[in-house]
């Protein structure tokens, strides 16, 4: 029996596949990066773990847990490629999938289209059945009609089926009957029913989630089965998939609910951020992940990941609890341009990885944020990625100069302008994200990661009056790291509208007991030992007559009567909207997050070395500052920095896949986990 001592996280991104392994005995972290294999993600996954093991000299069967962040489902949705799927729904409503909320996608752009309808009309079937809003059957399901349709589907060789009935969230009986029939007649067809995908009201969103699940289901299932086959062959048996709500699940659950992995990629990064900031005691964190083409923003509030049931992917609503991440098209590759009225704009067009910024010398001619940073001296003007990416700074100057002539500014002012405008796009989104939750940006610590996050952190702090920013030790592979610290998690949600004035406290407990039963079954299914089971409870609530629910945590120890719940709701409401009413309060959804606690890898604080950072200094770099003055910035090697080192701004810190800037009047301190904590100098 091999010594199972490694936990491995593999995060597949658009450009790279990142691997992070931790030795559970020594707590040593091992990292590997390789280009993603686009055709079949698992190729790079397998190749990557082989190379990693080889590089660090351990055997593959020493791997204990394998945790995977996959974009197979995300890509299937984005590319609109999926199974031949049919829909069965309540009579009168098969076009709901196409009508949606009847909004057009853009107010003024007449060429804009709605997202592609995933099931053509001829494969959308209606059956006679109807439930009222209380779940009372007001029209019996015509089973003969269902059987007839199912037979037809067999003839038509559909690969997948989705079932959504009106009001099924409150009474799934009819959906269950269809499920039974489908299992009998179409055992090989992939099946999703809406009451199992999302037990929440609002029929279009529920239908859309169910359809998406069936649409991508067969492909995701196949991918996971293949992966499982390959990994078990090399004796890696504990396999997990990261889901959208920042937790992991088994492969069999992922195969059944692939829609739950549709926002899997970015969520692991936020979990990594939560873990790292938790270690050093920060509770309220704004995470910002800036890559080549996009920026992901998320909030950690009071130590908790901010979760939402109101997300979109590629224009399709997904009402699955997911880490609330806002994405905008702004990154290092965002292209700067001058509009017809003479204004300098940045993005959303991006030079991407190919051809990339002008300085990559791969044919890109337009100035990007990265080029502006080369011109200003923020970035190394010879090479990046430890020499793997040569930089042609002349190209950057040419590209920025071209723009500068159009707006009549000098080349450095223009480069600075590109950075300022690019940041203003990010800032606009940060303000929106925070105000939606009832906060100001400066109530948070900024946690910057991704290839470009550490470049922007100092500037964003300054603009948003944020007191502190944290740059993790490995900003480029934070998502893979996050995978190593995730727990098993499954979210159960049930809509059941109740007016608090009309019910007893026992009614609420009773509803939660029902969810607990489901959670219990899941714990058993996943063989999670009782000592490791945790349930977190919450309610989605609103004032009666309103149509927006807010999430209110429900602490079983504290809440003992109805009034306690009302008080908690009013408190949460007030936080969001700065006032509350005396009006009647309703519960809309009951929520339970079942968590199977997994031991975290040990993280050992490093030894204190003192403030002197001179050993890491590699010299100086001349940088143009915001006032267009040439300033010497101290140049540091990140790998040489030790716990306690103090870095006086202005400074540039280089590491393999990221560059950090500390501004004038800012100070950086390296903490015991080798994060750099940047603060405004007092």
């Amino acid at each position: 029996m091999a010594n199972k001592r490694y936990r491995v996280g593999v995060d597949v991104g658009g450009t790279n596949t990142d691997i992070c392994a931790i030795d559970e005995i020594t707590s040593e972290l091992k990292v590997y990066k390789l280009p993603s294999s686009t055709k079949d993600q698992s190729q790079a996954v397998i190749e990557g773990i082989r190379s990693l093991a080889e590089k660090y000299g351990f055997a593959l069967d020493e791997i204990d847990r394998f945790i995977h962040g996959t974009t197979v489902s995300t890509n299937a949705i984005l590319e609109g490629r999926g199974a031949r799927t049919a829909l069965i729904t309540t009579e009168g409503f098969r076009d709901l999938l196409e009508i949606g909320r009847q909004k057009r996608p853009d107010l003024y752009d007449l060429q804009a289209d709605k997202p592609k309808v995933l099931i053509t009309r001829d494969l959308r079937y209606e059956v006679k059945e109807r439930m009222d809003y209380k779940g009372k059957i007001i029209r019996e399901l015509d089973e003969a009609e269902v059987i007839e349709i199912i037979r037809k589907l067999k003839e038509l060789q559909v690969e997948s089926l989705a079932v959504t009935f009106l009001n099924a969230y409150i009474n799934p009986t009819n959906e269950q009957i269809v499920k039974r029939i489908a299992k009998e007649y179409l055992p090989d067809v992939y099946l999703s029913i809406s009451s199992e995908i999302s037990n929440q009201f609002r029929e279009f969103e529920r239908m859309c989630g169910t359809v998406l699940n069936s649409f991508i289901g067969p492909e995701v299932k196949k991918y996971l089965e293949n992966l499982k086959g390959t990994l078990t062959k090399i004796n890696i048996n504990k396999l997990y998939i990261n889901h959208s709500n920042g937790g992991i699940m088994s492969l069999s659950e992922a195969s059944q609910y692939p829609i739950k992995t549709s926002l899997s990629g970015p969520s692991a990064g936020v979990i990594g951020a939560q873990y790292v900031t938790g270690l050093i005691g920060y509770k309220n964190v704004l995470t910002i992940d800036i890559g080549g083409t996009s920026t992901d923003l998320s909030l950690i509030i009071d130590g908790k990941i901010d979760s939402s049931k109101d997300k979109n992917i590629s224009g399709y609503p997904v009402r699955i609890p997911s880490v609330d991440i806002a994405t905008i098209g702004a990154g290092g590759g965002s292209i700067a341009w001058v509009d017809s009225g003479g204004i300098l704009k940045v993005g959303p067009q991006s030079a991407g990885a190919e051809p990339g910024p002008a300085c990559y010398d791969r044919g890109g001619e337009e100035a990007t944020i990265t080029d502006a940073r080369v011109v200003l001296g923020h970035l190394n003007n010879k090479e990046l990625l430890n020499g793997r990416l040569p930089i042609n700074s002349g190209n950057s100057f040419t590209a920025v100069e071209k723009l500068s002539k159009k707006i009549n500014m000098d080349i450095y002012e223009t480069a600075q302008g590109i950075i300022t405008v690019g940041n203003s796009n990010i800032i606009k989104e940060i303000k929106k994200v925070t105000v939606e939750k009832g906060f100001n940006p400066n109530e948070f610590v900024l946690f910057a990661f991704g290839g470009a996050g550490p470049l922007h952190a100092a500037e964003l702090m300054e603009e948003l009056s944020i007191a502190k920013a944290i740059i993790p030790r490995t900003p480029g592979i934070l998502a893979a790291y996050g995978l190593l610290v995730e727990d098993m998690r499954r979210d159960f949600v049930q809509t059941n509208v109740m007016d608090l004035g009309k019910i007893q406290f026992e009614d609420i407990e009773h509803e939660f007991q029902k969810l607990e039963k489901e959670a219990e079954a899941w714990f058993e299914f996943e063989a999670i030992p009782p000592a490791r089971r945790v349930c977190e409870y919450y309610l989605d609530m609103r004032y009666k007559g309103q149509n927006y629910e807010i999430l209110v945590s429900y602490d079983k120890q504290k809440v003992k009567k109805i009034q306690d719940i009302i008080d908690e709701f009013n408190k949460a409401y007030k936080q969001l909207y700065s006032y509350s009413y005396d009006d009647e309060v309703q519960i809309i959804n009951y929520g339970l997050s079942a968590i199977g606690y997994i031991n975290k890898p040990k993280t050992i604080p490093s030894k204190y070395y003192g403030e002197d950072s001179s050993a890491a200094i590699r010299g100086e770099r001349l940088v143009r500052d915001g006032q267009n003055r040439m300033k010497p910035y101290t140049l540091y090697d990140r790998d040489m920095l030790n716990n306690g080192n103090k870095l006086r701004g202005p400074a540039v810190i280089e590491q393999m896949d990221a560059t950090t800037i500390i501004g004038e009047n800012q100070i950086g301190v390296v903490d015991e986990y080798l994060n750099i904590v940047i603060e405004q100098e007092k």
Partner: protein
Amino acid sequence: MGTINSVTLEVISNSLLSIVEQMGVILTKTGYSTNIKERKDLSVALFDKNGKLITLAQHIPLHFSSLLGAVSEVLNKWNINDIYEGDTFIGNDPYSGGGSHLPDIVLVKPVFYKGELIAFAVNTGHHADRNIRRSTIYDEGLRIPIIKLYEKDKLVKDVYDLIMLNFQLKEERKGDLRAQLIANQFGENKIIELIDKIGIDTYTDFCREWLKYGERKARQSIKQLPDGIYEFEDYLDDDGNKTEDLLIKLKIIIQGEKIDFDFTESCEQVTGSFNCIRNALLATVYYAVKCLMDNTMPANAGAFESIDVTAREGTLVCSTEPAPTQSRATTTQRIADVIFGAFAKIDPIKVTAAGNGAVSFFNFSGFDSRTGKPYVYLETIGGGSGARFNKDGLDAVQVHMTNTSNLPVEALEMEYPLLVEKYALAENSGGDGEYRGGLGIIRGIRILDESKNTELLAATERTKTRPWGLLGGKYAAGARLNVIRDGKRINTLNKVNGFPLRADDLIELVTAGGGGYGDPSKRSVESRKKDIAEGKVK
């Protein structure tokens, strides 16, 4: 440009846009009624101290009428010395309150910086309370001229009490008005924060340069259009009050950097509620200009004021007191059709064929015996959009002047004693062509036993003159309102007002499709096959 350059122009405009976006978020989230929260029937803007629009959040194009109207009404009516820090103005009247119809209530908050007036934060929301359509504005509900709801941060209680007395759903109104107040207050705080940072001089310079930028963008796109006179006309079916075939006629006159939208020859105002005031006409022209000339044009006064709009007072498109205006949204849809029609003669690539051309709606009111309270349920139904030069129109969407969402069936049935029986595409409703027009919608609602004293107010358009096609594209199918009792259609008109309903009646609204584009014989075989396979065309 002083302190302002290509970069600061973009950065400060971004900051101001961010402020109105955040105001919109706050209004949506704090709003009380379904209409504000779920359907987002609201809009937000910032104006400078001279009443010039600085920035507008993208919500409902038609609402621009109320935003613009209210601020100019404040400046017209109030002596600048009587406007104080902490004031909030309220209004809804089309002829004296800046509004465009009475349900849209607008709140204007003058913003002061160090004692000096520097901006106006403005928002409007549709208060779906009572919904009355009569032959004069006096009968359509409470008219509020531009008056102070707050003075120096103190509620003018008499005004508030008078307004509240006139509402049926007081809790909703209270909540929505409060949300509107909070949104403006938020806007004020954020503008002050911004000016603290950039300085008042930079802000003032910015406002000036930003409007010049808008004008520059507008003039540039006008210059690209060929000089000439381009005409188009179309009709509204009727005014719901027996006047039929209401002519809207437009002449677009282009000369160099000038463009004039001349509506002089449109028909006289009517006694039905379809009259449209001048500001609503302006909002429609600005919408169309953004779509057709340059959708990157900033929504600011500099851009808009480069565009001339000529109309004759007392006409359908520029009505005067006492013409009722409740249903003016549908009229603005036809105005948009006419602008698109005329513009097709300038550049057919830029336009679409006619869309469903209406704000089709039904409004159920009655007494809900489940709750023991009166209820009002308003819903607008989208339809087809016109086909484009290179692709089909969109099925089942809101077009032009509105873009509100529907209310989910499961939410509706929880709240109102109604049952939705059908929500479907109207087959065969898209105009044929090389590219097909989008399909209309059928929504059918059954009255449940629990609904007492139920009344229906409903209207649709394009029941006679159908949405037209372009360059050989065909007309779309028209719209229809059906009140079905015991299996028979019992209404004679497609616009009804206070129609008494009984339990088990089925009300079905069928909206129009969009017109086709190009010669139908050129439609690809695959597209035709697909339409037939999907049953969209029979």
